């Protein structure tokens, strides 16, 4: 059930990420928009406007950074794959060269032995 489990894990992670983002957003916007001196229980107009703007900016920022991060990680992954491929090719070439050398050495020694017989 690997794909199901993977999906479930992804969903759980997503929920946890959303909850964490909500908590951080609440703390940040509360710190920025609501000064610590409370004169009345209700949010004033200025504070309400500030909170709307804060939430909009936070979500926009979150989305942009997420997109940039996935872009960079895809680039990084592609670079890693390319590097691995290049190094493997180099290794094969090296191996091939060594094999050729060994084969040449074997042939030389074999002819030498045969010629002395």
């Amino acid at each position: 059930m690997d794909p199901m489990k993977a999906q479930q894990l992804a969903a759980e992670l997503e929920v946890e990420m959303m909850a964490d983002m909500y908590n951080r957003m609440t703390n940040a916007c509360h710190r920025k928009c609501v000064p610590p001196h409370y004169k009345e229980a209700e949010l004033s107009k200025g504070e309400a406007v500030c909170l709307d703007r804060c939430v909009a900016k936070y979500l926009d920022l979150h989305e942009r950074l997420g997109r940039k991060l996935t872009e960079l990680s895809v680039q990084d992954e592609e670079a890693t794959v390319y590097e691995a491929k290049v190094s493997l090719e180099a290794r094969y070439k090296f191996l091939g060269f060594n094999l050729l050398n060994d084969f040449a050495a074997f042939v030389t020694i074999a002819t030498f032995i045969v010629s002395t017989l």
Partner: protein
Amino acid sequence: MGALPSPQKTEEQKMIERGMESCAFKSLIACVGGFVLGGAFGVFTAGIDSNVGLDPKDPLRTPTAREVLRDMGQRGMSYAKNFAIVGAMFSCTECLIESHRGKSDWKNAVYSGCVTGGAIGFRAGLKAGVLGCGGFAAFSAAIEYYLR
């Protein structure tokens, strides 16, 4: 998500609350309140500062009730209109400035007092406008200091 469980607000309730928080509604309330207050003030001062029914030929004649009432009504209406306009302007500008700044402190009242006083005084020239701005801003600042 993180909040305590509370009953969900209906769409209508949200709409009503949003309307009640809007700048237009606040300035309407201030306009009506100013009208009532100005009317009361005008009627009151008409009783104190009466110069009605003054007949140059007979300065000691007592004015008739109709004349007194008409004077009270006129003064009351005049004061009411002035107060309504001033109140609506002040409230509207204060709400707009507060929405623009995103903060809720005493400076909003001072700025909007300057704008209102300036607008009223500007009709009589630039100097009167500046004076009106300063005066009304100072008055607003005093009221805000008292309220906070």
